[in-house]
């Protein structure tokens, strides 16, 4: 008899198990192949796209009023920068845009004219309207190609910027290849006409959103921005660091590929879970098969077959099953290349034209097969431990001389449970393998469930981790307005639940750190709702400060350490009392009490209110209610003034400007006015319109920046959840069906004694439960730590473990495992007791 015929016979006999093994190796190969064949592609796709744009690798943006020509000179002389270019640009921070679907989204944008764009890069145009049409457009703009790829814009769409209560619609002339400033994480560079640029330059005039000077050059990897800023500070004789922003190739790449790399890591993790499960199952099944076919082995040996030859039968069987799975996985990986390319393209916002990485796929396929061969070979060699006589006696293994575990004599309670526990303890050796599978798969499931739950309401979870009260509006007051009085009025508005007086945060220098800080100031942090210390406590005294986890980790400082802060040349020392998991301002935010902030910035007066909505009230409704109550913000009024075209509007604007001056210079607090012609009141207004300088909310920008990532992660973790559940089901099915086959005679005897199929299925399911429960418990601990590491590494923040979800998933997983095992043991039903015993 050719030995491979035994393999074929076994494969045919255990078709489902073979399909299970093939499925697991297919999934492993597919996932590993996706990673291997695309990792390089992600890297090169960005590089090629960047190169195609003809962009310089560095841009330094400096607020126009802080710019000195010396800054150019430093670059040219100290850094030997050649072909240094300079151009004007407008930075628009968190600016609302009406999206394609009519909804409002917020972007950080840079507006430039074509002339400046050509100084930065080659302005390679992509899809666009015909030139004849573009010439006739009143307000044409060119958007980065990522708007076309990710956000679905097409040439001819209307892109409306909202500012000062006014809408500024632009026609999308087309898209262009962008090097720097092409993603949600940084800014989007938008090219507009000179006239539109001039208009916007007058619109954006705050301390943050304003016209800037851009310096464009190729600096290479070694450019030390911090050192450059120090030189600029010296040259300007003031601290200009807060007015300078650095854009470079490396940051741009990190922004665009970080999430892709995290997804790749998650895929590797899933692949490893699956592969470990496959290898364990192969091992478990070979062991079972050998035990099951012991007498057959004995007969073959007696006939003169060498143990090596018999081992090959098992090897062939699993190499065939695993090999088929691996090859199919490889083929599938090649076939789904366009889908993967699409995913990468959507995540990066850049065109991806990569190959299918067939070499990597072949390599992974061969590697998977090789490992399967080695694993199967190691276990199949076990045959040599059974010479004919022992094999014919079903091996020593079936002989029990050990201690009787859990004797029924002493057992009280349900007999099915008792027999299940007895069976479980008698097979303690196989527990380790099952445990590894359950722990690995359980960890992946729990982590996926926690992540999915976190993103179930898209960005809501992220918003809660900002380290600031994000579900609020920030009402910035005109100078001289009494915040206490405004607070009282705010509390009268039905939509307002709470109002807290605070300072408009200012950028603060941190001594010895290149990361400036943005202060969040509260009179009493007990009034905050989403600000809580992960370690230590919130500041309570004027010499205390709380810092973000990212700063704590990157700068190696923590609770008990001191830090020196500086504003306008005044330095004060603070004791760090707490560390907070904060996404706000990239984790650089510091938290000070009102007194603590005023100690450092003694000119500062509380000029802002954080307004909390009543339950169920949307922020936009809250903003509308506040605006209605106070008659609009001064910022809105300025916008109106600029746009005023008719006489009435001009009169109104002029009146309001006059009132604003009265308020600020002479302390006028309340004033109504009206322009009346005859009996008809043509124009009316009041001074309350100038109580509010501006109303802002963080929610919009967070949603814009994080929504695609949140949705992708949600989709990915859900898919992972389903996939791993299928893998767990396959694992348990294979283990259980193997157990049923191996124990069919015992099960037959039990049936003969009067145990029903349901009793036996219950016993088999219960037998797995101790391993499953302990495995889930360990997996919960692992998932908790992985979750912490994931969030810490990704956002330098603390993951809030949703224990309810964790417990629910634990229970669901336990029930799922029980049911899968129970129904996998259903084979018992199909065989009559007579057949079971006589087979």
């Amino acid at each position, binding site marked *: 008899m050719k030995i491979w015929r035994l393999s074929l016979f076994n494969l045919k006999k255990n078709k489902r198990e073979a399909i299970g093994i093939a499925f697991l190796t297919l999934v492993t190969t597919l996932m590993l192949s996706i990673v291997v064949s695309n990792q390089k592609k992600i890297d090169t796709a960005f590089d090629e796209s960047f190169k195609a744009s003809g962009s310089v690798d560095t841009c330094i943006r400096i607020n126009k009023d802080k710019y000195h020509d010396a800054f150019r000179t430093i670059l040219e002389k100290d850094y030997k920068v050649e072909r240094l270019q300079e151009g004007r640009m407008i930075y628009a921070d968190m600016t609302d845009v009406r999206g394609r679907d009519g909804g409002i989204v917020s972007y950080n944008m840079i507006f430039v004219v074509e002339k400046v764009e050509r100084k930065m890069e080659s302005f390679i145009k992509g899809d666009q309207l015909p030139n004849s049409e573009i010439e006739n457009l009143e307000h044409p703009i060119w958007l980065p190609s990522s708007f076309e790829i990710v956000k679905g814009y097409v040439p001819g769409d209307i892109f409306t910027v909202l500012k000062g209560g006014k809408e500024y619609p632009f026609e999308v002339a087309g898209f262009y290849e962008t090097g720097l400033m092409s993603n949600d994480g940084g800014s989007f560079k938008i090219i507009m006409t000179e006239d539109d640029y001039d208009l916007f330059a007058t619109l954006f005039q705050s301390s943050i959103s304003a016209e800037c000077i851009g310096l464009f050059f190729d600096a290479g990897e070694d450019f030390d921005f911090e050192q450059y800023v120090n030189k600029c500070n010296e040259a300007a004789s003031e601290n200009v660091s807060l007015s300078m922003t650095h854009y470079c190739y490396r940051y741009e790449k990190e922004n665009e590929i970080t999430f892709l790399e995290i997804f790749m890591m998650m895929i590797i993790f899933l692949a490893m879970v699956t592969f470990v499960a496959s290898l364990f199952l192969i091992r478990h099944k070979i062991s079972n098969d050998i035990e099951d076919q012991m007498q057959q082995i004995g007969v073959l040996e007696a006939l003169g077959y060498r143990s090596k030859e018999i081992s090959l039968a098992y090897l062939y069987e699993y190499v065939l099953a695993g090999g088929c799975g691996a090859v199919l996985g490889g083929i599938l990986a090649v076939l789904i290349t366009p889908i993967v390319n699409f995913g990468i393209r959507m995540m990066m916002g850049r065109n991806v034209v990569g190959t299918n990485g067939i070499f990597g796929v072949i390599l992974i396929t061969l590697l998977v097969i090789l490992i399967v061969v080695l694993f199967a070979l190691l276990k199949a060699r076990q045959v040599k431990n059974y010479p004919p006589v022992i094999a014919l006696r079903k091996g020593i293994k079936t002989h029990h001389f050990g201690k009787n575990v859990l004797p*029924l004599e002493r057992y009280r309670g349900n007999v099915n449970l008792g027999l299940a526990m007895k069976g479980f303890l008698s097979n303690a050796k196989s527990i380790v393998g099952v445990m590894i599978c359950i722990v690995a798969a359980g960890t992946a499931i729990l982590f996926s469930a926690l992540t999915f739950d976190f993103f179930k309401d898209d960005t809501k979870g992220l918003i809660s981790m900002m380290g600031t009260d994000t579900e609020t509006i920030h009402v910035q007051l005109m100078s001289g307005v009494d915040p206490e009085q405004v607070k009282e009025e705010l509390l009268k508005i039905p939509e307002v639940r709470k109002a807290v007086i605070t300072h408009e945060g200012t950028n603060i220098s941190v001594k010895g750190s290149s990361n400036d800080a943005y202060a969040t100031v509260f009179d009493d942090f007990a009034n905050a709702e989403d600000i809580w210390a992960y370690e230590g406590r919130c500041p309570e005294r004027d010499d205390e400060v709380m810092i973000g986890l990212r700063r704590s980790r990157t700068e190696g400082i923590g609770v008990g350490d001191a830090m020196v802060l500086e504003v306008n040349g005044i330095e004060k020392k603070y004791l760090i009392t707490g560390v907070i998991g904060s996404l706000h301002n990239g984790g650089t935010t510091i938290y000070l009490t009102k007194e603590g902030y005023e100690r450092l910035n003694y000119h500062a007066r509380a000029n802002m209110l954080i307004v909390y909505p009543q339950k169920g009230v949307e922020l936009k409704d809250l903003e509308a209610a506040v605006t209605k109550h106070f008659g609009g913000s001064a910022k809105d009024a300025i916008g109106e003034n600029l746009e005023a075209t008719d006489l009435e509007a001009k009169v109104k604007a002029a009146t309001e400007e006059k009132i604003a001056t009265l308020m600020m210079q002479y302390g006028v607090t309340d004033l109504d006015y009206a322009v009346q012609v005859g009996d008809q009141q043509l124009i009316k207004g009041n001074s309350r319109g100038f109580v509010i300088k501006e109303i802002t909310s963080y929610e919009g920008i967070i949603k814009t920046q994080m929504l695609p990532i949140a949705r992708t992660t949600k989709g990915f973790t859900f898919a992972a959840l389903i996939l791993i559940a299928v893998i767990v089901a396959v694992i348990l099915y294979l283990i259980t069906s193997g157990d049923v086959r191996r124990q069919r005679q015992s099960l037959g005897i039990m049936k003969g*004694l009067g145990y029903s199929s349901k009793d036996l299925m219950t016993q088999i399911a219960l037998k797995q439960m101790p391993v499953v429960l302990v495995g889930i418990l360990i997996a919960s601990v692992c998932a908790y730590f992985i979750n912490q590491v994931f969030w810490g590494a990704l956002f330098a923040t603390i993951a809030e473990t949703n224990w309810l979800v964790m417990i629910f998933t634990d229970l669901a997983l336990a029930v799922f495992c029980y049911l899968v095992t129970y129904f996998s043991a259903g084979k018992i039903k199909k065989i*009559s007791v007579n057949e079971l*015993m006589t087979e």
Partner: protein
Amino acid sequence: MASSILKTEKLCKSFSNGGVQQHVIKNLDLEILEGDFTVIMGSSGSGKSTLLYALSGMDKPNMGKILFDGKEIQGFSNDELAVFRRGNCGFVFQSVYLLDNQTVLDNVLTGALIVQKNNAELVSKAKELLKKTGLHEEDFKKYPNQLSGGEAQRVGIVRAIINDPKILFADEPTGQLNSASSKDVLDIFSDVHKNGQSIVMVTHDLKTALRATRVLYLRDGGIVGDYRMPVYGEADLKERRNGLTKFLEDMGW
């Protein structure tokens, strides 16, 4: 007159072998009386074991009725049959079929705990029965592979009778035993029978059949001979053997 405990009407059982239907039991009518020690004999392939499995609810017939204590069981599902077996039948197998990974005592209790819940009572009953069959206290903790064939079969018998079944079924219980062990085992069966236990046993062996009060001869799926004897006793053994031998010879055995 003893009452009927088990009855079949037009019982049929067939197997499909390579697409060919093999009719093993054909329209068999049979009645087993309470307290009888019934032995079913016949040549190989006559359907003895098939009949035994069908009567005991181990297997389902294709057609016909099986009435156990007046209740039809042929339509029971597998699980209903299991529940039926645990309450009414005990089974002793030719290959003993003890559970390898359980001790002697646990093997017995595994069969008992599914029916009875009082563990303490069961343990003492199991031990008492095991002792009655000649096993010693130190044997109770042994595993099946540490027992001789005879000892194992004694455990098998105790396991079968621990629940006081209405009928004890036995399929060639001495088929794998030497003559000394066979005698011990048969003595146990006789003792159990004398205590009122109804027994249905399949055998090839004349010595085993001698213990019966009734011998049925099966040929081509039907009962062709029915021979009655008094309750087994050593005194009339010769006469008993002659009578049975003659019956069997008449049957073509």
